[in-house]
């Protein structure tokens, strides 16, 4: 094998054809309000953990919709379930329950 000194760059493009709708529908079954997120960012703005870690519910939901579940779980790792996001969400999503549901469904092997 010749070593050219360089190799292929991985693509950073999101391919929505790879979106796993089956798993997402399982999430929707237990928390249907996830569909109404409008990515306003109120949850992240008020997040206690978000000030010191890359915790972000908005980014987690987006990552799930883009077919990147591991990234979504990364975004929720630092969550302390303090509930400030639930207090503020303008769409009335029960965000604590959503976070727990995402972790439950997507951590399952």
């Amino acid at each position: 094998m010749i070593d050219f000194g360089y190799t292929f760059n991985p693509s950073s493009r999101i391919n929505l054809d790879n979106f796993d709708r089956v798993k997402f529908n399982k999430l929707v079954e237990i928390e249907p309000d996830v569909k109404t997120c409008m990515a306003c960012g109120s949850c992240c703005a008020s997040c206690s953990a978000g000030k010191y870690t890359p915790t972000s519910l908005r980014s987690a939901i987006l990552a799930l919709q883009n077919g990147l579940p591991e990234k979504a779980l990364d975004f929720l790792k630092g969550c302390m379930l303090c509930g400030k996001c639930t207090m503020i969400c303008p769409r009335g999503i029960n965000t604590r329950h959503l976070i727990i549901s995402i972790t439950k469904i997507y951590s399952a092997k």
Partner: protein
Amino acid sequence: MIYEGKKKIWSEYQKEIPDDHYFYVRSCIRQTFFPASEWAFLDICRNKLNKDMFETEHHTTCGGIAYHSDVIPQETSMTIIARQFALMHKYGYQNYVCSCITSFGLYCETLESWREFPELQEKIADNLMKTCGLELAKPKFLVHTCDLIYKYRNLIAAQAKFKLVNKNTGKPLRVVEHIGCHYSKMFPSKGVGGAEYPYVLTGMIEAWGGEIIDYPERRHCCGFGFRQYFIQSNRGYSLSNTYKKFESMEPYKPDMIITNCPGCSYFMDRWQYVIAETKGKTYGEDKHGVPVFTYEEVAGLVMGYDPWDLGLQIHQIGPEQVLDKIGIPYDPAKKYLGKNGKDMGKPDFVECIK
């Protein structure tokens, strides 16, 4: 695909290309990559089509590579270009034709900058007078050699001995066309056919009997671009761009690729070897690659020039499969012999791609 829709767009991007009397300037890298392409262009235009293509030994490179790699500032390259234009004027020509796509982009950019910033033009005129003692001139028409071959395509087709048709099946050859970024993406109005569906190579292929393939990544850059690949560790970026194009054109099973930019021809040809060596993947039948040609080489082939006179032995991907398909006769034994049959040695052969 609704062809009429494309034709409508093409009709909106017409470019005025004069018929004759051109001042021709060579390209620095094309001489090295494709040595016979420029010879073929001049031979076709002067001897077969009886056009006036003038070139002077006093002209230089446009400085494009140096400019795009930040080695010289814009002012220097503009002064170099001003000198080229002044030479054109000195020899009594108004039509300027350049051979390299990057040159073409740079010339267009210079003329546009001078038009928009007259004080810059003054400054360059001043520089030119101080350094060379020449007066600034501007060409009336600036075209690229592919524009000229496009304009002469029907004349070439009339004199053509071969068509781009597979002689065994009778079907037109499936040709992928690739346009250099600096041709139409920078100034869509200066390219034949505009930026989204350029017509310059499509027109040539259609006139010579081939069939153009439209695949999703047709407008994607090949990844050349100077700065990206000068440093070895950055070349992965260039490689990945070409890889993406090949992956996208694979299902269409192209017979050959035609490009109008020297960098693009070079990369699309050579990277097939790297892809074959690292991933073990080739895009032609039976471990062959897809041969890449410049438009002059294709023009020369249909007009009946000997393939080895056109410099096709320098290509990484051997052109033999396309020559066999068209039915162009060639002597495999003469492939690596120089002028007058001189033995120049053979390159190392690789296993992974033919």
